[in-house]
């Protein structure tokens, strides 16, 4: 017998005797934003999901995963809801994932509950979201998770007066509330605050307003992607650095994939976030290498990609555990308490809240070689969503 034949024979034996299971095809419905002004966010998600499948398909053999990708066009809950409905009732998917925007997740909640259809939230970061359906689990982040410790850190770092500028929608409100609570409880003063409309072409007037309030720092949250870049530009142009006003906030304003677009303005910006593409760990180096191999040397995966990546890891986990036959309640039980070594560090799904528990990193934007990077300068380990701590379920 040649060695080749031996292998085939062994495989045949294994197939017949050792693993007498039928191969199941698990349908995963992905709802994300692939068109409109926010298409870049969905693209990162989509790329991460595709890459994960490519690299990990054998982990769940003989089962296969089929991705049904649908575009919700942006913050459009009615579209998201209809797509979810279609995915559940027509495409008969076994599990849902994705969702960039909070309102979209909220619109899906009643459906998920009724259909007992788990949704692995890969981005939408408003704290209240996971309380809306017992079939929601989140692998991304909450704004409270980053902004609350940011408030504490700011005071420790000697900042006493802060102007807050956030986008006027759920996550922005969360960021503002979390930061303000932590910062004022520590003894800091809010010099002024402004909420900026979600659809907005020009940040300059808001920043001018912040400048005129003459704070020591501006705390800001705007949606990651183009708005963050535009904000950063305006911040640099206004001469905020020259006026000795620092910029702090959750990591959305300096996402890794956007940093190359921002020029030198973000240098020195300090943010609190759960992922930096230069996070120093073997898992992350592996992840980054795989990404660049797949999408080119200049491609940078950011937190959106990592959220989707870990979301797929969670989905693979429940597929493996259930041997390809997914049940909504069982899936949720498996997700609760799931632990994983993510590119961002160790993560866990809180069994009580189904929300993520993860490290938060204090990062400063610095030059790394020729490019800018979020360099970690401190770690707050295993942060639970503070909002859920302050608002325990009744």
């Amino acid at each position: 017998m040649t060695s080749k034949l031996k292998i085939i024979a062994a495989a045949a034996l294994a197939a017949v005797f050792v693993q007498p299971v039928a191969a199941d095809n698990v349908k995963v419905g992905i709802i994300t934003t692939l068109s409109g002004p926010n298409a870049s966010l969905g693209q990162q998600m989509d790329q991460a999901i595709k890459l994960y499948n490519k690299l990990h398909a054998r982990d769940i053999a003989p089962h296969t995963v089929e991705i049904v990708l649908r575009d919700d066009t942006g913050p459009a809950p009615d579209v998201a809801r209809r797509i979810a409905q279609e995915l559940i009732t027509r495409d008969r998917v076994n599990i849902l994932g994705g969702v960039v925007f909070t309102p979209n997740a909220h619109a899906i909640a009643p459906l998920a509950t009724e259909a007992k259809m788990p949704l692995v939230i890969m981005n939408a970061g408003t704290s209240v979201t996971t309380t809306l359906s017992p079939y929601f689990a989140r692998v991304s982040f909450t704004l409270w998770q980053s902004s609350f410790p940011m408030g504490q850190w700011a005071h420790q770092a000697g900042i006493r007066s802060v102007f807050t500028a956030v986008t006027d929608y759920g996550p922005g409100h969360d960021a503002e509330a979390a930061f303000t609570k932590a910062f004022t409880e520590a003894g800091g003063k809010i010099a002024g605050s402004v909420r900026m409309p979600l659809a907005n072409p020009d940040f300059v007037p808001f920043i001018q307003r912040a400048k005129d309030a003459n704070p020591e720092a501006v705390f800001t949250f705007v949606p990651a992607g183009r708005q963050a870049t535009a904000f950063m530009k305006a911040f640099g142009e206004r001469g905020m650095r020259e006026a000795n006003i620092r910029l702090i906030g959750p990591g959305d304003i300096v996402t890794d994939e956007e940093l190359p677009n921002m020029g030198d303005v973000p240098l020195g910006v300090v943010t609190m976030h759960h992922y930096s593409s230069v996070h120093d760990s073997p898992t992350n180096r592996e992840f980054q290498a795989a990404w660049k191999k797949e999408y080119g040397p200049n491609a940078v995966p950011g937190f959106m990609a990592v959220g989707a990546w870990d979301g797929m890891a969670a989905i693979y986990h429940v597929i493996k555990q259930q041997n390809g036959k997914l049940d909504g309640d069982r899936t949720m039980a498996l997700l609760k308490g799931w632990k994983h070594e993510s590119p961002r560090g160790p993560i866990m799904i809180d069994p009580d809240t189904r929300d993520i528990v993860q490290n938060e990193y204090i990062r400063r934007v610095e030059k790394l070689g020729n490019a800018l990077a979020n360099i970690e300068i401190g770690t707050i380990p295993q942060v639970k969503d503070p909002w859920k701590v302050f608002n325990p379920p009744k």
Partner: protein
Amino acid sequence: MPSALIGILFDGIAYAMILYIISVGLSVTMGLMGFANLAHGAFAMAGGYLLVTLMAALGLPFLASLPIVFVVVALGSIVFERLLYVRLYRAGELDQVLFTIGLIFMAIAATTFIYGPLPQAVRLPAYLMGQVDLGFRSFPTYRSFLIVIGAVLILALWLGLERTRLGAQVRAAVDNRRMAESLGINVGRLFTTTFALGSGLAGLGGALGADILAPTPSYPLEHIVYFLIVVSVGGLGSIRGPFVAALLLGVMDTAGKYYVPDFGAFFIYVAMMGLLLWRPHGLFGRA
């Protein structure tokens, strides 16, 4: 707070320059041929992308890229005008609207295909970044540059329109198209020329404004409302009207965001409604 007021005026004027340079071509197109070209913003978007490409892929300097953008977009627009738009001059307004919305959709998809959904960033040269100190106060360099170059462009545009024969022909044709033709002016060709110039200007405006209104695939849809406000408030076919309208819009928008930030563009629309009810043909429009 006079300091804030100066800042608002300054920012508003810089913003207005961009709005005007992009929109003025649309005003002339609609005034001269009655063609409702909603896809006008696509030329501005093309200008922005072209600038990014020229600078990133070919390594051209920022200032050298600008005239190239103008010429390429202008020439490109002639292709569209001759191949497609010319078929719709006699069509109704609604058909024109539908047609140009269709073009916008196609442009969005094509741009996404080529450049991806991420907004493109312009690497401004170092001498245009930061602040300039004018003694009593410092101003952002790039916006100062915008105001200066915008003023130069507008001056050139006005002189061109007021002092050249081509400009006189354009005004004559807007005044009375049939009479202009009866005197031997080939209005069709004149229109192609002005369409190209207007589109080229839009492209240039898109390139100059790329730092403020970043080029993204959905650019033509996102900003179309502001372009239309400039044109309708200014008055169709007018050159000065849109400038006044752009100034009003730019300053009001900036002031609104500064003083009543959470009202968004509400007051802009209130003001526009008021203006249009007061003067249905725009500030400088003809009945």
